[in-house]
């Protein structure tokens, strides 16, 4: 086990209450800002003393409160890399890299030089942090953390203060750190692509609680929480009234405003509302209702808008009183002759209607 944590901690009205287990090697923690990601990392690092917690990092219990073990942050070997690089401004890049106990020798060793090489730090060594660019600073911060020979690397949105290109660069370096240097990490992010690229295991935090846990692909494909769906970029977010449950059929019927939508069976009582997310590419458009269809939803609709965006066409249709966004190819749009006010049928599989609570 890479990390096993059970934490309950309150701070100024915010409560973090999580249970996490991960074999790693990279655990992605995903969630909107203010969900408690940083608090979680600080608890693991020992920078916060949680009210109640048991935290095991690899083979060692670092925190068992109240009453039990408490390992000081400097003895946990959990190096923190934050959103801002936080380099020590008064010492050179070399001094920063050699900061941790033993890092000076490590820097001279083969392993250390490999880190310097992977992170392209050699030309920066004698410079002062003040003169470095954002991307360079973050590379130094990463190198500094790695040279402390951590048992666990804690990354708190390491790319979010960088522009897109530099963020990609840092991400590819993190991938090399993962594959070549084999350092286990807990990686906090609110960017879905980074999560997919780097994490083996993923926990979604919302309002201080783990709302989903599993393989990143699964978690992102079935975003069970609205905050996550917003982050991932679910195109259609709908709040619909529950009409009835069809238990033998395995569907819950929702009211789309005069039109019924079949979603996966849920336990929200009829007449209450449910939040549903549907990706635009999971909506199929036809000119007339196909026969013998496995998809439960074939909704008669009217096209309200057609936009060509790059190599795709975004079609907005009205079904009942709701608008849906569908993404199709220009070829399909041309063949169907979709234009404003055209009649169409939107085909949506039940499983494409992601229940978000």
């Amino acid at each position, binding site marked *: 086990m890479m990390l096993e944590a059970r934490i309950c901690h309150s701070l100024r009205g915010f409560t973090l209450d999580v249970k996490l287990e991960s074999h790693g090697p990279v655990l992605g923690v995903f969630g909107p800002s203010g969900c408690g990601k940083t608090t979680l990392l600080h608890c693991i690092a020992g920078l916060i003393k949680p009210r109640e917690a048991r935290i095991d990092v690899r083979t060692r219990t670092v925190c068992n409160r109240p009453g039990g073990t408490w390992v000081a942050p400097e003895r946990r070997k959990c190096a923190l890399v934050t959103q801002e690089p*936080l380099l020590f401004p008064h010492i050179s890049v070399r001094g920063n890299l050699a900061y941790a106990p033993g890092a000076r020798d490590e820097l001279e060793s083969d392993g250390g030089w490999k880190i310097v090489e992977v992170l392209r730090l050699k030309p920066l060594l004698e410079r002062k942090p003040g003169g470095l660019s954002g991307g360079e600073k973050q590379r130094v911060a990463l190198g500094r953390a790695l040279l402390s020979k951590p048992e666990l690397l804690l990354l708190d949105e390491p790319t979010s203060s960088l522009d897109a290109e530099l963020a990609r660069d840092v991400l590819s370096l993190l991938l090399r750190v993962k594959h070549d240097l084999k350092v286990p990490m807990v990686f906090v992010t609110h960017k879905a692509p980074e999560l997919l690229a780097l994490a083996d295991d993923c926990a979604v935090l919302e309002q201080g609680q783990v709302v989903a846990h599993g393989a990143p692909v699964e978690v992102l494909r079935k975003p069970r929480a609205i905050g996550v769906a917003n982050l991932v970029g679910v195109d259609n977010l709908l709040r619909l009234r529950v009409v009835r449950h069809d238990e033998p059929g395995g569907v819950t019927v929702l009211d789309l405003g005069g039109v019924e939508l079949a979603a996966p069976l849920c336990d929200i009582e009829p007449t209450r509302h449910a939040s549903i997310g549907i990706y635009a590419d999971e909506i199929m458009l036809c000119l007339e209702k196909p026969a013998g269809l496995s998809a439960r939803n074939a909704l008669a609709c009217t096209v309200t808008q057609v936009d060509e965006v790059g190599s795709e066409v975004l079609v907005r249709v009205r079904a009942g009183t709701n608008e849906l966004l569908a993404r199709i190819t220009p070829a399909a749009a041309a063949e169907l002759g979709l234009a404003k006010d055209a009649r169409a049928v939107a085909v949506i599989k039940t499983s494409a209607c992601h229940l978000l609570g």
Partner: protein
Amino acid sequence: MLTDAEIEVLTLSAQVAALAVAVSIVPGVLFGWLLARWKSPLRVPLQGALMLPLVLPPVVTGYLLLAAFGRRGPLGEAWNAVTGGHISYTTGACVIAAAVVGFPLMVEGIRLSMTAVDGRLEQVSRSLGRGRAATFVRVTLPLSLPGIVSGAVLSFARALGEFGATIVLAGNIEGETRTIPVAVYTLMNVPGTDAAVWRLVGISVVLSMLALLGAIWLGARSAKRLHP
């Protein structure tokens, strides 16, 4: 160009001020750090107590010091029991008066610069394996150096000008406790010494100005070294 008497007064003043800074720098750093980082409701009364000599009439400060360090005072008696000597009316008393009166300026300079040190740098340092003490020495202290330096020079300048507490605790003994301000006061009471008074006043202004300029220059220099 300076008379022997003037050189004696000047040297004594500089020695007293330098010693006052030397004895207060370590507690100054300690209390500055405490005020900057200590999260306790007791911090505010502590800060008030440390700032008190800044606003108290120096004569009052001197009287309180005399009550503590005088021959009948508890600290004075303790000193006498250990060494057989006395504190009041000695150069040491000048140093104590100057140190106490200059202390608020020193602590405030250090507190401000330590407050400005990003606490997250200290957190990162801890996570990299450096304990509290090592983090203080390697991160907090060097980053607050500009404030420590300017706090020290300001308290040095304040010590040079100390009069009220000094005259109460240390008196006016030539060559031992007669610092520049005490010397000016003494000469003022002697008729026909206007020229001598003016010379000392000039020396005092130049010396204080130099100390202030030094504080500004050193502060700017160490700030520049930190953030080039």
